[in-house]
């Protein structure tokens, strides 16, 4: 893995954890393996707000239907990375 993609991985994860910190988690640990639906209390409206913020931060389009494949924070980070790398 190059330094560049490592940096990107870290930047995405850090940004996500910062954005997610405002939502209550069931266990007190928020990390890459946290399950967004099962471990966190984010309703659909807040999830959409979160995605709009992420889109603005990384200047990408994140279709809501892509959330169907997202369970954990890591899954979300992976999707964002793909979008950033394929940015037109």
């Amino acid at each position, binding site marked *: 893995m190059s330094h560049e993609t490592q940096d990107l991985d870290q930047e995405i994860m850090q940004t996500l954890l910062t954005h997610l910190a405002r939502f209550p988690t069931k266990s007190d640990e928020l990390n890459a393996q946290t399950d967004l639906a099962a471990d966190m209390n984010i*309703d*659909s*409206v*807040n999830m*959409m*707000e979160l*995605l*709009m913020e992420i*889109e*603005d931060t990384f*200047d*990408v*389009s*994140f*279709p*809501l*239907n*892509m959330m169907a494949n997202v369970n954990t924070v890591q899954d979300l980070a992976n999707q964002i990375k793909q979008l950033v790398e394929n940015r*037109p």
Partner: protein
Amino acid sequence: MSISDRFAELAHIRDSLGAVEADPSRIVMEKILSPTEALIAGKRTILVGTNNYLGLTFEPELLDAACAAMHEQGSGTTGSRMANGSFAGHAALERDFAEFYDVPSAMIFSTGYQTNLGLLMAILRPGDKVVLDSHSHACIYDGCRISGADFLAFRHNDPEDLRKRLRRLGGDAEGALVIAEGLYSMLGDIAPLADLCAVAKEYGAWFMVDEAHSFGVYGERGLGLCEEAGILDQVDFITGTFSKSLASLGGFCVSRHPEMQLLRYGSRPYIFTASSSPANIAAADAALRAIRTRPEIKDKLWANANRLYDGLKGLGYELASTVSPVIAVRVPSKEEGARLWNALLDEGVYVNLVLPPAAPDSAALLRCSLSAAHSFEQIDAILSAFKAASAGSDRAVGASAH
């Protein structure tokens, strides 16, 4: 996840509503006394949360037309129009909508929900792009989701945010679909449709507007907010429902594109469900006539909205938007919302209690929807009830609530 897990989740939702004593499913209208009054738990109650904007549900023309249609054509159509054929009334109502909007295409569906589902499922495919207002109604989200298209939200009522998101789509913006509503049902705020439409057109996108709450209420002729914004010749699809201003059950879609009619051949929510009953069709058609010929009904609705709006402001309540036939009172907590909602019921006034996530940017909303059939005396009684209800609060609602 198993079905029994899902039952447990639903029971949890019910219990959380029960915990704040705010389960709307316990509201039973034992007797409907008029468009604006019912007996609830034996008590005569003023209804100010029923979307009966023009108050036509007991209008003699509607009742006579519906009864006559039922006697002539029967109580139900017992099937879909593709399988059983259309009744003359379905085709006539579509012609009336096309004529009213002066467009080549109009189709009616069995509900407003199915209208949006029917349009979106038919015109979108996986890979297509949709940019929709973040406050869009569930059926707009559902239609997008089922279609398999890529859909993303723009910030509520923000044309510049829409522009940003279309720009990010690059070449895909051309031919994308942009969706907004007219009057938003929860906060009672209206979309800047002229600006949204201009941005959509600048990028070569299609523009769809759901006028569920604005048809019959806005526009000089009552066509809705697209008429008021002067974009009837640019908007590509307008959808709406019979279940509010039209005092019936069903939905419509009109379009300046003659091809919209082709949805009949590929829209599953049109093809695979029974068509609206003769009574529903006749009532909607009579309501449409009332909108076209009696503009004074709309004027009365607005007079009522202004009176309630000014009165609630005067009582110190925080209102979510400028005046419209939907007036949403912001409440600082779920518990206070439920307490006020129950207190209003005790005072003989029914409003909608809206809790998150349905209450955008708020802990809770007490949502009032006005009707042209409300009298000024009823509006004043509603205001007295709000005054009495807030008297029991710890001054959490509106610093100046007396």
